[in-house]
């Protein structure tokens, strides 16, 4: 913990790599409305972190504070080892970002728009600009439409152009806010492969998405936001592991089964399909043994594959209190 | 470093600088300076030193004219905003002079040199040439004369000496120059609307730099003619020559049809009025007669766009009155009153209406 919190120690040669981005106690209030609060986010270097959350959960606000676009009401942001927003000039050249949809001038062609972004890019010399723009267009498959006005682009093409501008130069950290928004399946696959390439090249990626399957397919880490709070964060595999710790028992004698399990101090609750049993403190064979002992007729016992979607749904459901209790049991220690 | 605080202080500092700058521009130079310390001088000595100046030295200056007499005066230049020059004057100290009068969209230039006076009017690009005449008498009563405060003030001072108290009321600054303030106050017996006439005399050249006419019950001058800029010193000789530009209509001033304002006609009209003065001093009243049908007859007005009868014009700002004189119209302003009766009599003076009625009654 001590080594991690001091970026300066890294240069001395400590084994820990500082995170690409880290926030501490981040809070933003817009005209009396709390947009995000207590956000302690950490994007480990080299990770592909998926940021999940329903609309209005504070994903974009968090990203904008991360990039220094918005000054937090309180809390700290560190991006690539520089405090934001004051260190923007040092940190941002290493960061490529696509935030809140692609922002381009509608009356300029795709190429002209990218040339404009490139002109502002500190890492490019003037001589390198035409090549960098050409390559970026090629990379997102827009080379054929480079001369067309941005206004005439389809939603997917606009999104690709945004991706191209984020990837104009090699980055250490790429932030993609809803990158697959408006893309067809082929485009989605391309974005996935772009993320995979970035990951392979050692670039840290932060992706926010409402498409959970995307996150599941591409991310190594996940952070879940709900109503401005980080409700879960950690490695994807660990979170999914936690999500599987349930057993669904199909039985006609629901009440009997729940009573029997509670008597054996096993957490269980009735659900429409039968009885849902929490496996955190017990194992499947023990549950079956208890039920048989109590004479409960069991049609089927199934280990529940929650997947990220179920996890997400549980974490962000608005029927808060009961689910928060669930959450406590659901999350692994290190993610709480 | 708090960016928000920096932002706020930058914005505040910049705005404050700009606003202070604007206020500095707005406040006339030397407004807050104490009045200059000048050697004391008696009123008589001051008037004498003014009157002894029989010619205008070489100078250049800008002249402002402001009036707040409570009436629009046709023919006079419109009142200018504070500090705005309406005319620029140049003199070479040797009798030649140049006056440029700003008339909004157009400009009149009067160049007088070696007995020749050129009047240029940019509105119709006409040039009028007055040869071998003395421009001082020629121009009497025209707006151009107002732009010559030196001459105007000198006349007024000389005329008023008898019926007025003459004092030197400290010093001030006009057009950035230290001046003595010569104040003419009507003697208490004078029945006039005017409170005082204030002439600012340049301490160095002894030229009157500003003339203020103050009416009773008013803080601001009813009429102010004065320099806003004044620089004595030799002038570019080219200013005092005038070559009619190519394409301009040049007419001889002798056939006076060229001016929009028909001066000959007006002169003959004035002659026919049979003017007399009643009383003397501040409450002098000018009475006269005119053909009564003139009220309903067209008269060429200043800009040559006549059409309204004088009668209709008068009714716009006069109120109908009756008295021993019959019926008529009274036009009252802060500085004077005019009474026009329907049977063709007229009385004008810097006096209340009753004095005019008395004057008409003396006939």
């Amino acid at each position, binding site marked *: 913990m001590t080594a991690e919190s001091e*970026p300066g120690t890294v240069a001395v040669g400590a084994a820990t790599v500082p995170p690409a981005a880290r926030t501490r106690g981040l809070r933003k209030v817009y005209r009396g409305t709390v947009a995000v609060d207590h956000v302690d986010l950490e994007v480990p270097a080299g990770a592909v972190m998926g940021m999940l959350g329903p609309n209005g959960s504070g994903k974009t606000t968090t990203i*904008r504070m991360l990039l*220094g*676009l*918005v000054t937090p009401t309180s809390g700290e942001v560190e991006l690539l*080892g520089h*405090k934001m927003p004051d260190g*923007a*000039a*040092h940190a*941002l050249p290493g960061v490529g970002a696509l*935030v809140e949809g692609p*922002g*381009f*001038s509608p*009356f*300029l062609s795709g190429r*002209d728009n990218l*040339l*404009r*972004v490139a*002109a*502002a890019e*500190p*890492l490019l010399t*003037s001589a390198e600009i035409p090549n960098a723009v050409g390559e970026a267009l090629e990379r997102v498959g827009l080379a054929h439409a480079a001369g067309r006005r941005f206004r005439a682009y389809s939603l997917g093409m606009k999104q690709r152009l945004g991706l191209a*501008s984020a990837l104009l130069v090699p980055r250490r950290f790429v932030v993609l806010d809803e990158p697959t928004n408006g893309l067809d399946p082929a485009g989605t696959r391309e974005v996935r492969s772009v993320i995979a390439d970035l990951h392979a090249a050692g670039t840290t990626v932060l992706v926010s998405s409402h498409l959970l399957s995307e996150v599941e397919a591409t991310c190594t880490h996940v952070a879940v936001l709900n109503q401005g709070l980080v409700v879960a964060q950690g490695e994807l595999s660990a979170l999914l592991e936690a999500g599987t710790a349930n057993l669904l028992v199909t039985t006609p004698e629901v009440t009997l089964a729940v009573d029997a399990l509670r008597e054996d101090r096993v957490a269980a609750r009735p659900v429409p399909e039968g009885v849902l049993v929490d496996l955190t403190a017990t194992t499947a064979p023990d549950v079956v043994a208890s039920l048989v002992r109590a004479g409960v007729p069991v049609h089927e016992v199934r280990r529940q594959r929650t997947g990220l979607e179920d996890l997400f749904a549980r974490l962000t459901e608005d029927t808060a209190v009961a689910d928060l209790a669930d959450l406590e049991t659901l999350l692994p220690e290190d993610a709480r | 470093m708090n*960016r*928000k605080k*920096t*932002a*706020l202080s*930058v*914005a505040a*500092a*910049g705005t404050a600088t*700009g*606003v202070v*700058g*604007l206020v500095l*521009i707005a406040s006339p130079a030397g407004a807050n300076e104490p009045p200059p310390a000048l050697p004391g001088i008696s009123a008589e000595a001051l008037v004498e030193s003014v009157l002894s100046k029989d010619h205008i030295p070489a100078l250049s200056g*800008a002249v402002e004219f402001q009036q707040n007499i409570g009436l629009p005066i046709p023919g006079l230049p419109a009142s200018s*905003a504070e*500090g705005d*020059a309406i005319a*620029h004057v140049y003199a070479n100290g040797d009798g030649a002079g140049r006056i*440029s009068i700003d008339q909004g*969209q*157009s*400009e009149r*230039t009067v160049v007088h040199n070696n007995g020749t006076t050129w009047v*240029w009017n*940019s*509105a*119709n690009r006409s*040039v009028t040439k007055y040869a071998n005449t003395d421009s001082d008498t020629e121009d009497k009563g025209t707006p151009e004369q107002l732009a010559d405060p030196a001459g105007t003030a000198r006349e007024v001072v000389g005329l008023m000496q008898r019926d007025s108290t003459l004092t030197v009321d400290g010093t001030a600054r006009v057009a950035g120059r230290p001046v003595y303030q010569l104040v003419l106050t009507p003697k208490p017996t004078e029945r006039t609307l005017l409170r005082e006439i204030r002439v600012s005399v340049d301490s160095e050249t002894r030229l009157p730099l500003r003339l203020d006419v103050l009416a009773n019950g008013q803080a601001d001058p009813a009429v102010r003619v004065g320099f806003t800029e004044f620089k004595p010193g030799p002038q570019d000789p080219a200013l005092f020559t005038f*070559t*009619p*530009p*190519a394409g301009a209509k040049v007419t001889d001033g002798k056939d006076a049809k060229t001016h929009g304002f028909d001066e000959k006609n007006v002169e003959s009209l004035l002659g026919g009025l049979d003017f007399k003065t009643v009383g003397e001093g501040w409450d002098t009243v000018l009475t006269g007669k005119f053909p009564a049908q003139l009220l309903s007859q067209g008269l060429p007005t200043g800009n040559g766009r006549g059409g309204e009868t004088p009668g209709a014009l008068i009714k716009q700002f006069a109120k109908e009155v009756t008295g021993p004189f019959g019926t008529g119209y009274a036009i009252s302003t802060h500085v004077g009153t005019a009474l026009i009766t329907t049977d063709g009599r007229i009385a004008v003076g810097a006096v209340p209406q009753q004095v005019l009625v008395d004057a008409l009654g003396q006939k």
Partner: protein
Amino acid sequence: MTAMTVGAEVGAPVRRAPLLRLFRSELRMILRRPRNIIGIGLLGLVPVVAGIGISIAASGSSSSDGDSVDGLAALVDGNGMLLPIFALVLALNMLLPLTGAMLAADALAGESAHGTLRGLLLAPVGRGRLLAVKAMGVATVVLLSIVLMAVTGLVTGLLLLGGDGMLSSSGTQLPFVDGLGRIGLTIVLLTVQIWALAAVALAVSAYTEHPLIVIVCSLGLLIVSGVLSAIPALDWLDPVLIISSWESIGEVVRDPLDWAPLGEGVLRAVCYMVIGISIAYGRMLSRDG
């Protein structure tokens, strides 16, 4: 820890995109915008149309008094060098302020609406530098529009109305070179005045995402100033109003020139620029991108 972090930031060289490159890119964008091209083109046509109008009006009634056209226009007939000045003073009433306000509106509010401002901030272009580039872009295009008007006006005037040198409103004939000087002076004075308005517009532009609001506010400022200056009881306000300087620009056709009101007008414009730019800068530093 904090000390070390700060130390690292101070020590490391910051790479920045060259200012000139940013400026060129900004200009290219402004001048590629179809609306701007059309607008500037129309501005260039104003003197041509005015010149044709004056020459028709003058030839139609040359036999009569010559009073067919009023004021400055009367002086332009047969006096072609005055046409650019006449057209510029004419455009100062509405077209040029509109141009300045429009450019300033596009510069921050428009870019913000397109989402491109965010892109520039992320590049990153420092907020101060961004404002500088934007202000320089607006200023340059304003100057360009005014110079264009002067050039088309001069060419039209010389071809259509002719004249030898420039006839000043004081009735003196200025040689050709002096005439050019007067046109140049008009360009400078007008540019400075429009810059002042554009600076104020830029401040508004930094506060909103809606370019139209900027244009409405800027023109509203002019209209309110006009109303205030027309109320005699508020005469004391006149020297502070932005349009007070605009009325004195007609002075450039006088001979000899009276520099006092012109200089005062420039100073007033500078004050407005300082106010506008510093408010815009403050907002740029603190705004959320």
